């Protein structure tokens, strides 16, 4: 079985934050676009980490 590495975690984290935003928007009174936008903002931080801080960038 393949081991889970940093990039698997980055992708899982991005998916989790986007999903959490969407669920918050659907299940609570927070407007969907603000909840989803906030989820995307967190996801972007992970994307930044995965690309620049610890990324496969030459």
């Amino acid at each position: 079985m393949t081991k889970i590495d940093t990039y698997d975690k980055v992708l899982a984290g991005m998916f989790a934050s986007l999903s959490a935003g969407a669920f918050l928007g659907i299940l609570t009174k927070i407007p969907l676009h603000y909840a989803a936008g906030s989820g995307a903002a967190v996801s972007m931080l992970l994307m930044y980490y995965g690309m620049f801080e610890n990324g496969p960038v030459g």
Partner: protein
Amino acid sequence: MIETVLTALGLLAAVFVGINIGGSSTGVAFGPSVGSKLVSKKSAAGLMTVFALLGGWTLGRQVIDTMGGKIVPQSEFTLVASLTILFFIGLSLMISNLAGVPASTSMTAVGAIAGLGIATNTLNWAVMGRIVSWWLVAPTVAFLIGAVIGRYLYVHMQKLFKIDSSDGNLFKYTHHLPTGLQENTSIREAVSSILVVIIACYMAFSAGASNVANAVAPLVGSEVIGLNIEVGILLGVGAMSIGGFTIARKTLETVGDGITDLPLLASLVVSSVSASIISILSLMGIPASLAISSTMCITGLGWGRASRTVKVKDTLKGEKPEMKPRALKEDTGKKIGEESKDDLPDKKLFDPNIISHVVSMWILTPVISATASYVVFLILNTLG
């Protein structure tokens, strides 16, 4: 008299914008199909017209509705205001065409309308907040999908997808209609080829859904001009079609905007993902940039593919393999972490700097457009 002249100028500006959008969209959507000789340039322009009309007629209405009366009330779209907004959209198209600087037409349009709203104190901030929030979500989702495919699925998809194994026509034709496969055409090749064209049509659909509004929303929104939404869509798509049959002849050959530089399979992934994102946003009435979603998807795909060459212990040691997204063409048959940098060819398809490019385009385009439009409308208001 002046009203008639201004209305005529407005229609001309809308046609100018439509022609340019049509030219670039046809290149982006049908570049891979024309490049692989699956459809001719004329057929590409014809298909572009049909599917852009379908997209504009169905989902495009929501975007026109948002841009032509929800960001600022319809009453603010005076003849001069509509013309000024179209001028800004046309200007950004000209700058991006002449200087090769990518600028999003949708973002310019929203920025210019927001500038009008701020100058006249009529901007609906709730609608703007909604649009900007989805502008955060769209590129992130595009990157994530691209990255997941690049990291886990792409090498497997390469085994299923095949397009260039046989020479000549793929199908037997009777009266110009395909009636069966040629002897040397495999089913996999036929299915892959049909898929390329279907996805191009899907991309054309999403371009119509999202972009028709950029050409005609300021006119449809204007109570003075009173352009019916159906007529507006036909005008916008008609202009896009002219662009498809004229400008696109050149863009289909020379498009270097990323998508068509990719290996065919990668361009199909990017096209399907970005077309889906833009179609969903259009359905929600959100104007959004196809270029930004597709660029982020390309970035994700390259990142995902490059990340396969890294083992976790190496990244902890600080080792960073190079980003070589020509690697998208390669199937080394190895698992994640087993591949080395040397398994990937040394051709640079993807420049990591592209991200800063996208971010600047993503932030600067609407901000510059909104600021310039604000200043212009403030002066116009002062003058009376």
